[in-house]
């Protein structure tokens, strides 16, 4: 019995670890969708943030600088996306895809140039983000497993979800962002400079993708590999759709995807085919979207 409890505890733990980067990206996706900037470049943004945070840490061994660079990368890339979509009237789909492809190319290229490898870079002497061991809990068998191996940023992600809720739903600035996303024309008719709000809001929220990137390359493991973002940027778009851009809903939807990813991971030792297991998160994305849209359509009918 004890084994299975430990087993569940470790599933819980990996759910948390898969969930937090996704949560951060989903929060950013939430701001983008509320501000009516259709951003599908999250994936590329995440990949570049992870890379540059790792690179900074590799050369400077200064974790604060690394996180800072990660956040700046997230903001810069998101700014570029927003600028192209909002100011230059680019087709959002093309802009986003271009950024995603560019990120893949750039990181692969730099990986080759700097580290002379096409696959994985890691350095055992490198330190990642500070892990938090809650005193008193870490030695308790089950709880210790459940909350083990989590970094400052993992915990901070949860705090950010609440902070984002307060900003978006309780402050004047959040109110304006939500309004102008609903009807940009109406907002500008009242003299609000819509593009400026859109660009600033999305750019700032890009810093959360930066944090997510740090979690990927400097989190539970300290390494960078090609395509480390592994479609999390796209899953975040789905997660954001499930929660209608609500920051607290993002907690639930990213937990769902975190759990299914963890499930795929722990079932690796079972008899199920590897390829099938890797489908679980994506199949659950489709299923969840179907269920939610169905429920929503029904609600609307009423």
């Amino acid at each position, binding site marked *: 019995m004890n084994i299975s409890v430990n087993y569940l505890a470790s599933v819980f733990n990996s759910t948390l670890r898969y969930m937090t980067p996704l949560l951060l990206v989903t929060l950013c996706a939430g701001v983008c969708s509320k501000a009516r900037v259709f951003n599908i470049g999250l994936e590329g943004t995440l990949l570049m943030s992870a890379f540059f945070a790792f690179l900074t840490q590799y050369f400077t061994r200064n974790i604060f600088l690394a996180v800072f660079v990660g956040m700046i990368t997230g903001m810069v890339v998101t700014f570029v996306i927003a600028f192209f979509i909002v100011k230059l009237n680019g087709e959002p789909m093309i802009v986003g895809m271009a950024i995603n492809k560019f990120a893949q190319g750039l990181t692969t290229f730099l990986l080759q140039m700097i580290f002379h490898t096409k696959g994985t870079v890691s350095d055992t002497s490198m330190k990642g983000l500070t892990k938090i061991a809650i005193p008193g809990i870490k030695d308790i068998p089950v709880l210790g497993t459940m909350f083990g191996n989590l970094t400052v940023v993992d915990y901070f992600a949860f705090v950010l979800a609440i902070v984002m809720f307060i900003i978006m739903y309780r*402050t004047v600035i959040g109110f304006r962002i939500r*309004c102008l996303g*609903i009807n940009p024309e109406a907002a500008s*008719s*009242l*003299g609000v400079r819509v593009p400026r709000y859109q660009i600033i809001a999305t750019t700032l929220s890009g810093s959360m993708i930066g944090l997510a990137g740090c979690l990927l390359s400097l989190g539970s493991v300290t390494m960078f590999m090609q395509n480390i973002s592994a479609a999390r940027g796209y899953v975040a778009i789905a997660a954001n759709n499930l929660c209608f851009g609500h920051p607290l809903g993002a907690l639930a939807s990213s937990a769902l995807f975190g759990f299914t990813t963890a499930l795929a991971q722990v079932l690796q030792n079972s008899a199920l085919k590897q390829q099938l297991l890797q489908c679980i998160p994506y199949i659950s994305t489709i299923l969840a979207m179907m269920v939610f849209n169905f429920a929503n359509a029904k609600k609307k009918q009423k």
Partner: protein
Amino acid sequence: MTEKIFEIRHIDKLYGTLLANDDVSIHLNQGEILCLVGENGAGKSTIMKILYGLEAPTDGEIFVKGQKVHFHTPSDAMARGIGMVQQHFMLFENMSVAENIVFKNEISKGLFMDRKQTVQTVRKLSEKYGLKIDPEAKIEDCPVGLRQRVEILKILYQSAEIIIFDEPSAVLTPLEVESLLETIKSLAASGKSIVLITHKLQEVMTVADRIYVMRAGKVVAERLRGETDTDELAYLMVGHHPALREVPAAKPGKILLETKKLSLHREGRDILKDIDLHVDAGEVVGIAGVSGNGQTELEMCLTGLQRPTGGQVFLQGEEVTNAGVKAHRDSGMAYISEDRYLWGSAGEATLSENVLMAKENRPEFNSNNFLKQKAIKAYTKRLIERFSVKANDTEQKIRELSGGNAQKLITAREIMMDTPVLICCEPTRGIDIGAMEFIHDRILEKRENGCGVLLVSSELNEIMTLSDRIYVLFEGKITGEFKRGAVDEKTLGVLMLGGRHD
């Protein structure tokens, strides 16, 4: 009373080569209700958009309270106390009424919204001006009349002294119009100065203190209400006296369109209940009713856009109840829809593309699935000329046309379908007298050719003038049927509102 609160001097506005405003000079006195009347495209909206900072004038000056001003954006105008209720509402759908009103001037505690105070302030404001609303209701749940009220409150919240209404009654039901006119009067009584843009002359005669008539970009007349009447205003607007229409009696032939016990049951309600109607060859049949009593659903059932839950529809003796739109059209039905942009046309498509719609398979325009561009253009040109649509080119977007001209083109397309049955819904909503007469002529012409026309309209005048037979629709049921001349406006009005005919 005679203090000029704003004055516009010699404004010209050029759009390309089109002179939309030609040396326009108007002023507004403190506390008065000023009406700007004119046909569509006469330049009345343009001049007000210039005043509100939405458009820049090509030439001329604007003075507000004696000071010369240059407005670049609506917020500049707003800062000088000028607000405008536009035709298309500028609201945030899933936000509350109160939130919509305070947007941009939020009531806050530091960084945070003060929700209680917001609701209270809005409630006070609504009580002060007698504009009843529920501050906490969501906009998406508000009917059009209420939304307009929110727009007005929004402007009042920003303490505007001059309020411009741009054709405010175009989207309202008759009852809502009445309450709007009351509102306008009481706003003026409380010291606000009002500009009302309209082409509905009854409204003008109800509320105006002073009237400017515009035609082709120029101010052609200025009148006090007491010294004019609707006939003179109509004359000034169109430049000729609209002839009182005498429509010769119809010679009905065989039944073309018929419904038997047509019903539509939705969400536990009877939207349509046992509708029995028929339209014969050579007659115009009117459906009178206050909008929202099942007209939209009736036309959708008749045209195949909606499947009825009971009863049958026959077109030229053939049952088409569940056959779908294409089958309806193929069996000889054309349809001028209620909403010219939602159903009637594709705004971003060109005039010739819009004209081609539903004719794309006809051999004169289609050769082995390739479109015959030349033939289509030539045909569009013919239609534009025959229906006197004001357009620059067959390849411009239909959205660029004024409402009346777009409607003329859609009417042209449907009439040229040359079908035995024509269904027209609100064919003249929101368009000017000239275009309206023109469309009426075409409808009657259609009748003379032995076709059956079903006319759905919330304009009682239109129904009474054109119809050889009138059905009254109330809450999804037919509550009366009359031959031409057998009923007066009052009786119809009573039936439309659910009263009984005795």
